[in-house]
C-alpha cells in the first residue's frame, strides 16, 4: 500500500451500456479512505454508470480506474471484488430467493475458509438481520433489504464501498440510520462512494461531492460548499424522487 | 428431368412463402415462432376439410371450390394465430419459442387423432386443386400450378414490401430496433407485434393450403417439427430481416435437402434407408450451426441492427 496515493482515482472515464454509445464522457472522481463522497446530478447524468463501470458491469471505453495506485480499469466483473471493491447496486441488490444467511455467505464467495467470524460481525452491526438469518430475503422490509445489501458487500472487508442510491424508497428514519452506518464505516477506514438522488441529505453526511450532468463533471468540492452554492442548489438540490 | 424441376420449383415457391412469412415475424418483428409447421398445418387441413370430396365417414369434406378452401384456410389460421398470439406475444423470446412449439405439437396430435375430421394417420385425399379438371396430365397441371405460384409469389413479395414501407411497417421496424421505444409505446407495441404475428401466420396458412392443393392429399406426417426447422434454416441461411434473403434461402436449403436426399439414396443401400435419412438431417443440422457460428448474417443478410440513437 502506497502512502499518499488517494485510494480511488477515476480519471477521464468513458463508459456506456452499448459499445460505441458512451453515457459517461470523461468523468474524474477521487475518493480517499475515511471519507464519504457523493455523486449527484439530474436523471440520466451517468452517475450510476460511473459506479457500474468501476464494478465492471458496463463497458469501459476510455480512462482509468486506479485503486491504491493499482490499475483496475479492465478487470472483469467477477474479479473486481477481490481487488477490495464492494458494490451495492440500486436494484436487485440482494438474492431474494436466498436466506439472509445465504446472501451473506455468497457475498463472501471469494473468501476461502471459515466465515463464522465475519458472519457474527455482520450480525452484530445489523441486529435485525441476526433475528432473520434463516428467512428468505424476499420477506424482508425495504430497510432490512438495504441493510442486507450493505452487509453483503461488507463481507469481503472492502477498502472501497460503492452504493447506488442506498436510500431510494426508504422511510426518513431508515434513511438516517443508513447514513449513520455509512458514517461509521467511513470512520473505520473505508472509502465510501455513493450516488444519491436524495442530494441534500447525502451531502449533509458527506465530506465531498461531485455534480455530474450529461456524463461530465460539472461541479466538485466540499459537501458544505456544494450545499451552499446557489447554482447547484437551484439546479439540482431541489430535485427529489 | 423437367417434370422434376417443375415440381421442385413449386415446392420451393411454397416454402418461400413460408419463409417470407417467418421473416415478417422474426426478421421484422423479432418474434421467435418455433411452431411454423403448426400454422402451416392449420391452413393445409382447413383447405383439405373444406374442399375434399364428401365421404360418409368424415365430418368435414365439404367439397367446396378451391378458392373457398384457400380463403377458409387463411381465415382459420388468422383466428388460431390471433388466439395464440394473445397469450404468448408478451412472453420473453424463448418462452414464446416453447409455447409456439407446443402449439405445433398439439396441432399435429389433433391431426393424427381426430379421425372423423382429419382422417387420422391416413389423412384426406381428393382435395380441391385449382382448375384441376382442365389438365389431363400431372405434368400439365404442375406447369400451370408453377405459373400460378410465380404470380402468387410475386404478388406476395410486392405486397409485403409495400406493407413494410407503409407507416405500419415503419412503426414495426422501430419497435424491433429500439426496445425502449417499444416500452414507451407500451400496449401499442404489443398490438403491432400481434398484428405482424397474425399476418405472418395467415401467410403460413396460405402456404399450407397451396401445398395440399398441389399434391392433392394431406397427411399428418407432412407436418412434423422438422418442417419448422427447415424453414428456420432457410431464413437463417438466406439472411433474416431481408425478403430477398428469405426466398434465396428457401431455394438454397431446399436444394441442399433434396440434393442430399438424392445422394443418400444413391450411396446408401435401401436396407439402411433410415440411417441414410439420418445423415441427411445431420448434414442440415450441422449446416445450420456452422452458419450461426461463422456467418450469422446468412447469404445476403442485412447489416447488424443498430439502435436508432446512434445518430443523436
Amino acid at each position: 500500500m502506497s502512502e499518499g496515493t488517494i485510494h480511488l482515482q477515476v480519471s477521464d472515464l468513458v463508459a456506456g451500456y452499448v459499445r460505441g454509445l458512451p453515457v459517461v464522457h470523461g468523468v474524474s472522481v477521487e475518493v480517499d479512505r475515511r471519507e464519504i463522497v457523493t455523486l449527484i446530478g439530474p436523471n440520466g447524468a451517468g452517475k450510476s454508470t460511473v459506479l457500474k463501470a468501476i464494478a465492471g458491469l458496463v463497458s469501459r471505453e476510455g480512462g482509468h480506474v486506479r485503486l491504491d495506485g493499482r490499475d483496475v480499469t479492465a478487470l472483469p466483473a467477477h474479479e473486481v471484488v477481490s481487488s477490495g471493491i464492494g458494490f451495492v447496486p440500486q436494484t436487485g441488490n440482494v438474492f431474494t430467493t436466498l436466506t439472509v444467511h445465504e446472501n451473506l455467505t455468497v457475498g463472501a464467495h471469494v473468501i476461502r475458509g471459515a466465515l463464522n467470524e465475519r458472519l457474527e460481525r455482520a450480525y452484530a452491526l445489523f441486529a435485525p438481520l441476526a433475528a432473520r438469518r434463516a428467512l428468505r430475503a424476499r420477506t424482508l422490509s425495504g430497510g432490512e433489504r438495504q441493510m442486507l445489501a450493505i452487509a453483503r458487500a461488507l463481507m469481503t472487508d472492502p477498502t472501497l464501498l460503492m452504493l447506488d442510491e442506498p436510500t431510494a424508497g426508504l422511510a426518513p428514519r431508515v434513511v438516517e440510520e443508513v447514513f449513520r452506518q455509512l458514517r461509521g464505516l467511513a470512520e473505520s477506514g473505508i472509502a465510501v462512494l455513493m450516488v444519491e438522488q436524495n442530494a441534500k441529505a447525502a451531502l449533509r453526511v458527506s465530506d465531498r461531492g461531485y455534480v455530474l450532468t450529461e456524463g461530465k463533471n460539472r461541479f466538485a468540492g466540499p459537501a458544505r460548499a456544494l450545499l451552499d452554492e446557489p447554482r447547484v442548489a437551484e439546479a439540482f438540490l431541489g430535485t427529489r424522487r | 428431368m423437367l417434370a422434376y424441376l417443375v415440381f421442385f420449383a413449386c415446392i420451393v415457391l411454397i416454402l418461400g412463402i413460408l419463409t417470407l412469412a417467418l421473416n415478417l415475424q422474426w426478421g421484422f418483428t423479432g418474434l421467435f415462432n418455433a411452431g411454423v409447421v403448426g400454422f402451416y398445418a392449420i391452413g393445409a387441413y382447413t383447405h383439405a376439410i373444406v374442399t375434399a370430396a364428401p365421404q360418409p365417414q368424415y365430418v368435414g369434406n365439404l367439397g367446396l371450390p378451391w378458392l373457398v378452401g384457400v380463403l377458409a384456410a387463411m381465415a382459420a389460421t388468422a383466428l388460431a394465430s390471433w388466439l395464440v398470439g394473445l397469450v404468448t406475444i408478451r412472453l420473453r423470446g424463448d418462452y414464446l419459442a416453447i409455447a409456439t412449439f407446443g402449439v405445433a405439437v398439439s396441432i399435429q396430435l389433433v391431426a393424427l387423432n381426430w379421425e372423423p375430421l382429419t382422417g387420422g394417420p391416413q389423412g384426406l385425399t381428393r382435395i380441391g386443386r385449382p382448375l384441376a379438371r382442365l389438365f389431363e396430365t400431372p405434368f400439365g397441371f404442375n406447369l400451370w400450378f408453377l405459373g400460378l405460384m410465380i404470380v402468387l409469389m410475386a404478388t406476395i413479395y410486392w405486397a409485403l414490401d409495400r406493407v413494410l414501407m407503409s407507416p405500419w411497417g415503419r412503426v414495426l421496424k422501430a419497435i424491433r430496433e429500439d426496445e425502449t421505444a417499444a416500452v414507451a409505446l407500451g400496449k401499442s407495441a404489443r398490438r403491432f407485434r400481434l398484428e405482424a404475428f397474425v399476418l405472418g401466420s395467415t401467410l403460413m396458412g396460405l402456404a399450407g393450403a397451396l401445398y395440399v392443393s398441389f399434391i392433392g392429399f394431406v397427411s399428418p406426417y407432412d407436418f412434423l417439427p422438422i418442417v419448422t426447422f427447415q424453414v428456420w434454416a432457410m431464413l437463417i441461411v438466406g439472411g433474416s430481416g431481408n425478403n430477398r434473403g428469405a426466398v434465396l434461402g428457401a431455394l438454397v436449403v431446399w436444394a441442399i435437402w433434396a440434393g442430399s436426399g438424392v445422394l443418400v439414396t444413391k450411396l446408401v443401400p435401401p436396407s439402411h434407408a433410415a440411417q441414410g435419412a439420418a445423415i441427411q438431417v445431420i448434414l442440415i443440422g450441422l449446416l445450420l450451426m456452422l452458419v450461426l457460428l461463422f456467418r450469422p448474417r446468412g447469404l445476403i443478410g442485412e447489416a447488424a441492427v443498430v439502435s436508432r440513437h446512434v445518430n443523436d
Partner: protein
Amino acid sequence: MSQLGQALADGILTGAVVALGAIGVTFTLSIMRFANFAHSELLTWGAYIALVVVAFAGPGAPTGPLSFGWQLVAAALIAAVLTGLAAWAVDTLVFRRLRRRGAHPLTMVFAAFGAALVMRHLVVLVWGHESRYYTRELQMAAELLPGVRVLPDQIFIVGLALAAMIGLHVFLTRSRTGMAMRAMAESPALAQVCGIEVEGVVRLTWIISGALAAFAGVFIGLTPQIHPEIGFNVLLSLFAAAILGGTGSLPGAVAGGFLVGLAENLSLLVISPGYKGAMPFLLLLLILIVRPQGIFGERS
C-alpha cells in the same frame, strides 16, 4: 377408483423422470437464459451410453424383485458422468462460442434446435430406430393397492430419482458452490459482483444437468424401452415442468415434474391416449396465463 389409483401411480413414475430432466432445463433457463431444445437429447444419449455399457458388462442378474443387478446401476452412473461431460462439450463447441460473441439468446435457441437434430440423428445413425432393452427379464407386477399395479423396477426408479433430487438439494443449500449456483440462477449480475465467475457455474450446471438427464434417460429406457425418440417425446413436458415450477428453482422443477406427470396420466381417464402429448402444452399455457413466474418463481 382403481383406475384413478393406477393413473396416480403411473403419474408419479412419469413425474419422477420428468422432474429429473426438468431440473437441468430449469437451470439452463435461469443461468444461461435460453431454452435448450437439445436438453432432451441428453436423456437419449444417457440411455444409449448405458446401453453400450450393458452390452459389455450385461445388466446383471436380477437382484430381488428387480429385473437387473447392480451392473445396470453402475452403467447408469457411468452414463451420468459421460453425459455430463458431453453436455459440457456441446456447450464448449457451440453455445459458449455464441455466448462469447454476445449472440442473441434466440440464436442460441436456434443453435440448440440444430444440435438436437444432430444429436438425435447420430443415435439413429448408429443404432437405427428399433426399440432396444436393457434386459429381457420379465417382471411380476406388485399390487400395491387393489387395482394398482406397479413393477418393482418402477418403485426403485422413483426411489433413486428422489434420492438424486434430495442429494442435489443438499448440495445447493449446504455447500457454497451450490449457493453460488442458485445465486447465479437468480441474478448473474449480482453474482458477479460477489465474485462468482459465470463460466465456472455454467460448466457445473451443464455437468449436473447432463448427469440428471442421463438418469432420466436410463429410467425411461428401463420402463420399458429405449429408442431414439425417448428424449424428444418428453421435451415439451420438461419445459412445461420447469416453467410451471418457476425457472431456477429445484423444488419448482420437482413439483412441476410431478404435476406434469400426474396431469398427463390423469388426463388419460378422460381423453384419448393420442392426445396425451398435448397435456404438458396445455399446462404450460395455463401457467403462463395465470402465473407466468411459476409456482415458486418471483415476479420480475
